């Protein structure tokens, strides 16, 4: 069936390095993707989104890349800080309408001092 999935459950990076979190999707009709950050004990927090008519979108220290050919998107975090430690989910409202998001499995980003 259709799914949104992440390649790695845990990613450990050194503070100050760049982080790249990957996500694969299978629904060719998906036209909008959202990245969420969830810190321990908190609800998911919107980070950045991208529409299918874009290949790249930049925010503050974050960049999302979308490759529709291989159905892959990535979240890049520049100069990783301790506060970036969290679980990151990509999400896809591929069904359209008020039918809720489909979340990927999540990647736990661990920042090493």
């Amino acid at each position: 069936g259709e799914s949104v999935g992440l390649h790695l459950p845990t990613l450990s990076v050194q503070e100050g390095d760049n982080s790249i979190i990957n996500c694969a999707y299978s629904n060719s009709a998906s036209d909008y993707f959202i990245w969420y950050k969830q810190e321990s004990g908190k609800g998911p927090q919107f980070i950045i989104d991208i529409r299918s008519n874009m290949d790249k979108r930049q925010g503050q220290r974050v960049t999302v890349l979308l490759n529709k050919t291989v159905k892959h998107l990535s979240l890049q975090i520049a100069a990783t800080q301790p506060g970036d430690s969290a679980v990151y989910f990509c999400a896809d409202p591929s069904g359209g309408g008020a039918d809720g998001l489909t979340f990927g499995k999540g990647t736990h980003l661990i920042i090493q001092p």
Partner: protein
Amino acid sequence: DTEVTQTPKHLVMGMTNKKSLKCEQHMGHRAMYWYKQKAKKPPELMFVYSYEKLSINESVPSRFSPECPNSSLLNLHLHALQPEDSALYLCASSPLGLTSGNTIYFGEGSWLTVV
């Protein structure tokens, strides 16, 4: 203001109790959602309300009963729950459904423990 407020933050209840989780947003959003999240898992959709009407029930057991009194409030009534229902319950809202460009905003969640 992109705030979704959930109460209580923590709830412990017995299997014979009746309790409710509450959610409130004042962003004028017309779609509201309940999600359930177990430890180390992504959120799973339970219910969707659109214009105060239940539009999606993802085969949730009847011991969970949602209610949308008005466009700003969403409740989840709990009765005769099982220990495996212990989880983080997340409320969310979006302007209107999930057509391209509509983002869902989540509350901080209510931690439920069933004993």
